[in-house]
């Protein structure tokens, strides 16, 4: 039996967690002698107060949606994929190869081709640890995190020795051709008469990410495979008894997870940088874990949490630009949000559950007395 009504579960718990994180962040900002109210105002106006701010917020959010979904689907099968970072790096490699070596006639075809390559590369990178887990019992947490380092080494090697244009000092590929450049939100919205900032990097991948959220929801709650994944996640032995193959579910869940993480590359590599740089993922794979935790592994939750983290990133950038709050402190603020919404979830949940339980008891007692 659910102790709390659904709205409290979905809205109230994260909201109170956020509030607590906000209060502590304010105290920290106060402690270094800055004005927390001004800082909060700056973060909100910088991230949400203009289409420019929104453009950056949504750009970061798109990255986090992909990696958040990747972690979420693995969570449903009770697999902890912390290799999103490496899978996204490999996805970037796939996008770069697709964009550099295939003469695409139009961006729409390039997007499909690059997305397939990104997903494929990410999926392959996740499939190896998945196979090791399914067949050999090597723990997925260990193998996926080690694969992050292997991915970094592989990317470094290919960029420096193979893909770097001759004579360039920058370990990065050449710029992709114009035909592969994705339309930004500015290009998409101006035919509708909506003026959106030209400078912001948010692009059509946002729509792909939203479609992926919806698709994942369909997969998890409306298909047989989704049912099998969830059943396996709840109880491996029961799933086995029901004829669900653990090897198959482990492989399939991780392949979908890796493909989603890899897909992030169409946003950051193809949509923003338009070339592959060494440091293209910048920890989005790890932020995905926090996003999935906060979103309770539900695609809608992941969507909202990704936007929140996008806001924190862009708001943090504004703080760094206009105040003397050091960037380490901005990381502290972001970390506090992760801590309260992810790790300290029960701290808010348990007292709330008690409160709702007490109210229900009181109501039941009253009804009993009336009868």
């Amino acid at each position, binding site marked *: 039996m659910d102790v709390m009504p659904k709205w409290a579960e979905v809205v109230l718990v994260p909201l109170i967690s956020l509030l607590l994180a906000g209060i502590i962040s304010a105290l920290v900002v106060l402690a270094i002698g800055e004005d927390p109210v001004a800082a909060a105002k700056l973060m909100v*106006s910088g991230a949400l*107060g*203009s*289409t*420019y*701010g929104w453009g*950056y917020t949504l*750009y*970061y959010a798109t990255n986090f949606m992909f990696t958040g979904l990747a972690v979420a689907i693995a969570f449903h099968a009770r697999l902890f994929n912390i290799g999103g970072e490496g899978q996204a790096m490999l996805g970037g490699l796939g996008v770069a190869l697709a964009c550099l070596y295939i003469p695409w006639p139009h961006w729409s075809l390039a997007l499909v081709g690059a997305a397939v390559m990104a997903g494929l590369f990410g999926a392959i990178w996740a499939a190896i640890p998945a196979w090791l887990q399914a067949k050999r019992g090597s723990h997925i947490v260990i193998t996926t995190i080690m694969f992050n*380092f292997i991915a*970094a*080494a592989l*990317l*470094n*090697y290919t960029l*420096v020795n193979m893909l*770097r244009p*001759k*004579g*360039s*000092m*920058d*370990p*990065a590929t050449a*710029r992709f051709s114009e035909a592969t450049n994705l339309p930004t939100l500015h290009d998409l919205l101006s035919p509708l008469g909506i*003026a959106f*900032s030209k*400078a912001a*990097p948010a692009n059509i991948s946002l729509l792909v990410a939203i479609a992926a959220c919806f698709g994942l929801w369909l997969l998890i709650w409306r298909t047989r495979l989704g049912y099998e994944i969830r059943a396996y996640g709840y109880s491996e032995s029961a799933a086995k008894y029901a004829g669900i193959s653990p090897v198959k579910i482990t492989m399939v869940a991780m392949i979908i997870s890796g493909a989603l993480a890899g897909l992030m590359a169409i946003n*950051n590599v193809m949509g*923003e*940088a338009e*070339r592959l*740089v*060494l*440091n*293209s993922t*910048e920890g989005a794979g790890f932020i995905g874990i926090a996003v999935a935790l906060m979103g309770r592994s539900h695609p809608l939750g992941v969507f909202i949490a990704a936007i929140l983290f996008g806001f924190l*990133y862009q708001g*943090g*950038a504004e703080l*760094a*630009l*206009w105040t003397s709050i*050091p*960037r380490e402190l*901005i990381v502290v603020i972001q970390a506090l949000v992760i801590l309260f919404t992810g790790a300290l979830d029960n701290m808010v949940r348990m007292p709330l559950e008690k409160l709702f339980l007490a109210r229900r008891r009181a109501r039941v007692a009253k009804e009993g007395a009336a009868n």
Partner: protein
Amino acid sequence: MTLMTKFMGAAAAMALSAGAALAEPALIFDLGGKFDKSFNEAAFNGATRWAEETGGTFREIEMQSEAQREQALRRFAETGANPIITMGFGMADPLSAVAPDYPDTKFAVIDVSWLDFPNVRQVAFAEHEGSYLVGMMAAMASKSGTVGFVGGMDVPLIRHFGCGFAQGVKAANPDAKVIANMTGTTPAAWNDPVKGSEITKAQISQGADVVYAAAGGTGVGVLQTAADEGILSIGVDSNQNHLHPGKVLTSMLKRVDVAVYEAMKAGEDLETGLVVTMGLAEEGVGVAMDDNNAALVTDEMETAVNAARDDIIAGKVNVVSYYENDSCPALDF
């Protein structure tokens, strides 16, 4: 668009209300952060020196993500910061997107030499020449005939350092052996003193008795271990001789601080549209000689280094740059 203009207005107002003159210079640090004991910190020191001497103020930002590079450039340009000084080759690409949009703003970029914009001043250091000189000293100080090189990440810039170093070693002692290792494959490699220490120990076990660190904050661990194990080390970027007096043979100076100081001093009159090469002749690179390493540097070494410096400046000795054809005559990577 109205929202955008409103926002730009707000941003401009904010810059004004901060009590700053509009033509404040701005400094954009690279991802390593302001206090990396090396590249970015040198820039910060140059800017601080300018601020102290002139009483001026400057805007600054430390990058947190790749997407911020272009963002920071645009935001500073929109608020009228001039000149805008940026650090590192990672800024080359965003700068080529932004610079044409703000023709009245002057940009300076350190470690970049291949762009072509009328309002961009590019400053490139001849790290291979400075590394060549410390390589000579290393070979002359080495008793075992084996010297070590510890790089940060395996990127062209670090190969460039290592290549100059190896050429210098071979010039002083053609039979000498150079062991080159890179610290890691992620940006963490620029600030991993523990790993730097391990690599140094591994190089010592292979016979190295002088090690040259070109690895940012990782170098602190290299120098420490070299001092502990009783071998000599060579610092990089800023003068690190004082970290372990009598244990650090010398440091390869890269005067990023001078480049930043001069750009800020020139202010809005900054000369742009050109590539400034900071080599031995311009004293942009060089070897650090002070009281801390005086006992280690023999007269013979000093004479050889001075002669080599003059020869390089005169063009009699050509130190091959790794960038010329992406390979090194003296060292394989």
